[in-house]
């Protein structure tokens, strides 16, 4: 380690420090900076030549006086110390303790910028996780090793939903074996507090590692924090064989911090001022989830992000959706109607669901039931739209049934209690109750066998016009 300190700072601006005449400094090296009062700041080399080294200062460059700034290059990339002791601890974005307890002592240090997983080393995630939430389990199932974000917006109950997932997630018929890594970037004190209390009250604190950066703490730390958290998650999953559930909130603050730094560096912006590499940068984070051949553990990732102005086409949700394996989208409209969890079904999707559900995993009718609910709800929303134009009374009897279905679906299937933990069988049975509001001829996504087995009015196919059937 180079103990030598340099005092050749030639400029300090916008969080960036230039140091001259320091040859041979490694790109990505960690840096310690001391100001005139002897206070320490942290940094990282983001460009290096023999003439000049550019350093990004985590705590910013405000009040640095060029004459009296000392820079020390630590000759190491950003690392985290790892041992089983990290469970139950709280750290900041640099991996330093934030809980008043001493640092984790270990010989095992890892760079937080891991090399990419070899695709040939991965195994396809397939094991269904039961979250006890019908809209997720029934329609957008989560599997071990998946990355499935929650797209939310200010004022919506994403924290409560994330906490409910953490509390209830387990494989069906198994007790929870998840270790939890919680990463908070730029969140308010009360949000951080909410999660800490959640973990404490459900008795899992000893099985959680927290990385917290509050809204008033240095934004640059938000860039290293998720990488710290994921390095810890990888250690728990692939060294200690644990199944890890990583909750990250709020990815929007992360991306904003990235934009801030990119702008200071003068990077060419792509959309809305975000740098062109936002996609690759987010992918470096999200792609660290998954399953690896011959390893017992797994990393399941649930990032939470708020969509600026509720806009799903904003670069942050947009690029996230392009990387993750689906998304759970929350709806302000449902929230305002008092529906919890206000999951907006249409744009929500789980891409890994197809291999994790059905006969060998949940129940044989699950894939078709999910498809059918989607198709019906889409049709029912069109009908609702029509009803708002021409009036519900003008609708045909058949269309009336779709309206009835939409209402029942939202009130009974989507809505559930914050402590209500529905098994997948309960969810599917509930789905059939709703499907049975419609005659069998209206259901073309389920098979005739499934209909015979589960539809409440199977068998009496309607040759007669629908009007003559009593409404279910």
């Amino acid at each position, binding site marked *: 380690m180079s103990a030598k300190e340099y005092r050749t700072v030639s400029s300090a601006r916008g969080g960036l420090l230039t140091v001259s005449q320091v*040859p041979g400094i490694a790109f990505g090296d960690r840096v310690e900076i001391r100001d005139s009062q002897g206070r320490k700041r942290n940094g990282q080399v983001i460009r290096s030549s023999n003439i000049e080294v550019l350093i990004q200062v985590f705590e910013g460059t405000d009040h640095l006086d060029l004459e009296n700034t000392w820079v020390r290059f630590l000759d190491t990339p950003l690392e985290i110390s790892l041992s089983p002791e990290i469970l139950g601890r709280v750290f900041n974005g640099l991996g330093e303790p934030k809980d008043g307890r001493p640092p984790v002592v270990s010989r095992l240090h890892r760079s937080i910028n891991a090399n990419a997983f070899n695709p040939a080393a991965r195994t396809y995630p397939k094991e269904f996780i039961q979250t006890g939430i019908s809209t997720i389990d029934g329609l957008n199932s989560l599997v071990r090793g998946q990355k499935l974000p929650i797209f939310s917006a200010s004022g919506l109950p994403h924290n409560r939903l994330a906490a409910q997932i953490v509390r209830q997630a387990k494989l069906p018929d198994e007790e929870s074996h998840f270790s939890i890594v919680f990463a908070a970037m730029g969140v308010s004190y009360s949000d951080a507090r909410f999660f800490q209390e959640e973990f404490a009250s459900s008795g899992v604190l000893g099985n959680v590692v927290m990385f917290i950066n509050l809204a008033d703490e240095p934004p640059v730390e938000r860039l290293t924090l998720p990488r710290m958290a994921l390095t810890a998650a990888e250690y728990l999953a692939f060294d200690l064989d644990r199944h890890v559930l990583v909750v990250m909130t709020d990815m929007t603050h992360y991306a904003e911090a990235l934009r801030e730094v990119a702008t200071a560096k003068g990077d060419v912006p792509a959309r809305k001022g975000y740098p062109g590499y936002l996609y690759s940068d987010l992918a470096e984070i999200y792609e660290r989830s998954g399953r690896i051949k011959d390893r017992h553990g797994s990393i399941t990732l649930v990032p939470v992000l708020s969509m600026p102005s509720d806009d799903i086409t904003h670069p942050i949700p947009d690029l996230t959706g392009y990387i993750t394996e689906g998304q759970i989208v929350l709806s302000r409209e449902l929230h305002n109607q008092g529906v919890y969890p206000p999951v907006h079904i249409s744009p929500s999707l789980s891409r890994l669901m197809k291999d994790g559900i059905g006969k060998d995993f949940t129940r044989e009718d699950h894939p078709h039931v999910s498809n059918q609910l989607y198709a019906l709800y889409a049709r029912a929303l069109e009908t609702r739209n029509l009803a708002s134009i021409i009036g519900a009374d003008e609708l045909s009897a058949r269309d009336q049934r779709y309206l009835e279905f939409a209402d029942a679906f939202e009130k009974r299937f989507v809505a559930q209690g914050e402590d209500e933990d529905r098994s997948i069988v309960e969810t599917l049975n509930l789905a059939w109750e709703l499907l049975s509001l419609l005659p069998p001829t209206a259901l073309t996504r389920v098979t005739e066998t499934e209909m015979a087995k589960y539809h409440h009015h199977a068998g009496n196919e309607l040759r007669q016009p629908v009007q003559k059937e009593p409404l279910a």
Partner: protein
Amino acid sequence: MTKQGVIKDINGPIVTIILPGVANGEQVRIGELGLYGEVISLQGSEALVQIYESTEMVRPGEPVEGLSHPLSVELGPGLMGGIFDGVQRPLEKMFLQAGDQIPRGVSPDALDRESQWTFTPTESLEPNTQVSGGIQLGSVQETESVLHRILVPPDVSGELIEIAPEGDYSLDQTIARVKTADGEIRRLKLFHRWPVRQPRPYLHRDHSSEPLITGQRILDTFFPLMKGGKGAVPGPFGAGKTMVQHQVARWSNADIVIYVGCGERGNELVDVLDSFPKLKDPYTGRSLMERTLLVANTSNMPVVAREASIYVGITIAEYYRDQGHDVVMLADSTSRWAEALREVSGRLGQMPVEEGYPAYLASRLSAFYERAGRVETYDCGRGSVSLIGAVSPPGGDFSEPVTSHTKEIIQTFWALSKELADARHYPAIDWVDSFSEDVSTAAIWWHEQVDRNWEKRRGQALSMLARDAELSRIVNLVGPEALSSAQRWILEGAALIKEGVLQQSALDPVDTFSSPEKQFLLLDTILAIYDQGADLIELGVPVQELSDLPILAKLRRCKEVYDSDQLDQLREFREQAIKSFESIRSEYAQRGELTS
């Protein structure tokens, strides 16, 4: 003698080196780790290099070595069934040697040097004859379904001095010697190298005459792509681009499939690696993996190798084309490639023109797509490369630069729609925004091979869908009561086409593949029944009576009930359906309710 130099400046993936004599495009290795990179510009003895790997902890002053050749791929037996990264490093081998993560600065040979291949020389080829690039020296059965023709490399010509007899050879052994015009003796092996940024030569271009059959109804029947054609699949996230590409990779009647995962998810490649070996090619009955090759630069891998990956893919595709094969290359996603281009150009301080993209985006894109096509090869008859690129427009907005430039270049456009995907109408290909410029050429094939009414039926279906859109607008304004019975039957007919033909689940074991005969029969059946119904309605049968017929629900399910080799049963069903309509007609006639 390798050239030696030093690192001057490191700016992420862009490194300035001092290396006298280095050429533009030359491969270099930099630093103690020996990271691989490529020279992208020169100024005096300084060169800018883009590095394919992370430059973390690399220092100025570390050594640099020039490798004296541009980025090239190894072409020879052993490619099929493999997975390679964006610069053709063999990922399976790297996993076995180095573990879960991709280590830096290592580059095992792309093709295995130990394996033995049985080489059969071309019978007619005698020593002392003149040979030139593309002439077939012999062949190797690479996999059960792929005959690999060993060609004289494009840059070699001269007198064939010797050719090896039939026997087993490894890749490093000489199988022929050629004396070039200037007297040099070239030893040819079972493989050769070719620079990826240089298109491989061929005799001349040929027009495409056969559609690529993908087994997907909306693609083959409505928006066909020719063998050797260029297609694009744009769509917002989650709309189904990757699914479309996977389906084409699975079920198309190509000899070779090259799938390039360019800046996308690792698990999607695992999906292919897991499922393809178990799936059977419907044409050869062999495992699909035997004819498939994957190039993987996942989104979390360094971006510079992403830029290279599509060239690696297309060069391998051209190589199999030169052997007379029909090759399909899928690139998912070309937008990520364009973004890699943008990132490098940004680091170089080049002037951005639109949304940060450099001015040369359009020309690079079209030069890339231009490498697709059907050609007359030098010695192996005709071969083709069909190229299908996914496009991922930000916010799903098709007016952005990559989508709009791509649209100008391609002939077939499969536009995915968020609305359809949200309603789980899969494949979510929008029949209004999509187009194929080759319908009339494809029609010749369909009319000869399947049915003379193909183009007519296709046209009828599309105009019914167009009528449906108009009528639905009216319904949304004033309600369904405003429509006549005949108009309501059109809505019903359009719904039948959407559900019974256009929607096709990739996850359903029967529906995932539809032979051209099945595609036509389904469409023809639905239209025939529609026509019958239209007649009845004209005779006064209430539309509700028809819409509620259970046979219509059955009709929607036919696609999943009858396999492509159960068409007789499907025909039987059709007869039945038509009969049940006829019985309604006579029922009404008896009751004397018919107006005529």
